[in-house]
């Protein structure tokens, strides 16, 4: 924007197309090498999750009991586990589970959190008080504990772990949107929208929501990283995915029995978790620098 003003002032015709906010953000994002690396890692795991079943050498539960606890070799690139299952194949299948939990739990908390945040921020008064207090209460628990509480009510399963993770992330999104709505609400274009008789719901969806999107995208990306770790942690504690699902956290928990003789059974699933989470974290950091005007300079 800065090079635009002088051009207009001295009357030279404007030849360059003005970059929109998204294009500008993309340029900013591209500048950060780490962010691009992060996006690359994320893209890699997404591709693996999609084409996984076609490239995995073994099925999820295909067991070859004669090939138990084999070291990584040319046949089994990452070795086999105590039931003779190919670890690489299970990790490939597991990418699907982790990304699925990551995306959908975040989408769930985003939708519910945004809804509550918008209502609290836009209508204020007692609705705001109630919703904000509920957020306060939820944030008063360390997140993994709240997840454990939810799962101990619903019973351990992957789906319930997803629900639990979605629930614990609601207040993060809710608060973010609420504060954003509070500041946007005072803008002049909202006052003028009200003045021309626009309905609340239309103001909310066509003005306020689109304008509060960028911090949500950043928070969403980082939240996927946390959600993946939390799902793996629940799986590890036996509260998430159940056997024989190739969930990475569950694979780690199963590997504990043999980790002295067969360290590869625990090394690779953990590495997969770490890489995916690292990818989302790097991407989130890059997006924050590109999208959040306060962080610019």
């Amino acid at each position, binding site marked *: 924007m800065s090079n635009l003003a002088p051009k207009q002032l001295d009357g030279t015709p404007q030849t360059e197309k003005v970059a929109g906010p998204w294009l500008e953000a993309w340029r900013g994002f591209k500048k950060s090498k*780490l962010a691009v690396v992060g996006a690359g890692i994320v893209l890699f795991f997404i591709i693996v999750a999609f084409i996984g079943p076609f490239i995995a050498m073994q099925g999820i539960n295909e067991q070859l009991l004669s090939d138990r606890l084999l070291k990584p070799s040319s046949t089994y690139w990452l070795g086999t586990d105590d039931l003779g299952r190919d670890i690489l194949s299970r990790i490939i299948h597991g990418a699907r589970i982790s990304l699925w939990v990551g995306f959908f739990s975040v989408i769930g908390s985003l939708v519910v959190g945004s809804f509550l945040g918008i209502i609290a921020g836009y209508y204020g008064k007692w609705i705001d008080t109630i919703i904000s*207090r*509920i957020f*306060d*209460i*939820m944030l*008063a*628990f*360390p*997140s*993994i*504990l*709240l997840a*454990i*509480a939810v799962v*101990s*009510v*619903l*019973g351990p399963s992957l789906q319930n772990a997803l629900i639990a993770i979605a629930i614990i992330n609601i207040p993060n999104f809710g608060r973010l949107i609420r504060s954003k709505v509070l500041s946007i609400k005072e803008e002049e274009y909202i006052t003028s929208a009200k003045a021309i008789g626009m309905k609340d719901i239309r103001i909310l969806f066509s003005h306020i929501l689109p304008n509060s999107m960028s911090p949500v995208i950043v928070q969403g990306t980082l939240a996927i*990283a946390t959600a993946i*770790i939390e799902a*793996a*942690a629940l799986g*590890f*504690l*036996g*509260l998430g995915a159940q056997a024989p699902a190739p969930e990475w*956290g569950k694979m*780690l928990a199963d*590997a*504990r029995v043999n*980790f*002295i003789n067969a*360290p590869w059974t*625990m*090394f690779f*699933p*953990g*590495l997969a*978790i*770490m890489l995916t*989470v*690292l990818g989302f*974290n*790097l991407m989130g950091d890059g997006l924050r620098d590109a999208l959040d005007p306060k962080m610019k300079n």
Partner: protein
Amino acid sequence: MDYKRGYTFLFLTFCSRIILEYPATFSLHNALDGEVKTMLHYIGKRLWQLVPVLLGMTFVVFMIIRAIPGDPAQVILGQQASESAVKALRTKLGLDDPWYIQYFDYLWGLITGDLGESMRTMNPVSDEIWGYLAATFELSLFAILIAIIVGINAGIISAWFQNSWFDYTAMILALVGVSMPIFWLGLMLQYIFGVEFGLLPTTGREEVRNPVESITNLYVLDTIIQGRYDQLGTVLKHLILPGVALATIPMAIIARMTRSSMLEVMRSDYVRTARSKGQRMFWVVYKHALKNAIIPVLTIIGLQMGMLLGGAILTETIFGWPGVGRYIYEAINFRDYPVIQSGILVVAFIFVMINLVIDVLYSLIDPRIKYD
């Protein structure tokens, strides 16, 4: 458990000291009486705001049993349980009363110090939990110390030698550190230092054949009090692996925060002035720059102390550390709901309290913060 009384005494002494020495702490900052009043007003307000949060927390925890789909008593006891046993449990848990009466009973119980009774050991949770809490406290304290010492220094050196190999290595490690699943790191540490090199013990808090005689249940303190320095060594050795695992994430976050905060301060005029006066770089960095750079780092440290409680559950499970996290974990496996409830409540209560103390301390350190 007699150390419970000891803790209460320690806590009361601590509180009374704070109250008595409160004005003295303030005179350090040359604060005026008016400011003390604002401060007290702020603390009072924060405590008052805490009431609905605490009530809400108790309600959430109260609902853990009640929200179980179907008959909670049946679920807790399993499908094979006899009808009379289920009925007895229903009466014991008060499940037949209307929910608001149950809730008030529960609240009253909490106020009178009744945290329920473990269904596994049949002991009151309020008696059992102290020992576990002490173990968690010891581990968390050790972890946060490692995180602070290593994290802050790594951040300072990275900022001091910006764009050097040390800076790059430290920051890449920090990036990996924040993305590290703590349970995986724990297992790896166990494998590398416990199994492969056989350097450090991988489970528990003490040598099984040479148990520590517990006074406060903080073993480091206990061994020092008793002068058992041979045991102190083993106790410290047992702390290292779980401590490092638990410290990694906060360490990474503290290092990153210190670095960015230091970089900002190092560019300021007064640092340049100190340099141009010929002050040695070490003193410029550690004395002048650090003083102003540390404030945002302290907030982060405070936040991380709360987060440690969450991480402790996973770390304690892996390292067989008999802390409150492991207590909750075992309770889950046994469907010991009173322990799950009270364990979660106690940890969440501590979490809230830490956050409150940090907020208050933060406003003490940085007078620019307004108490609104």
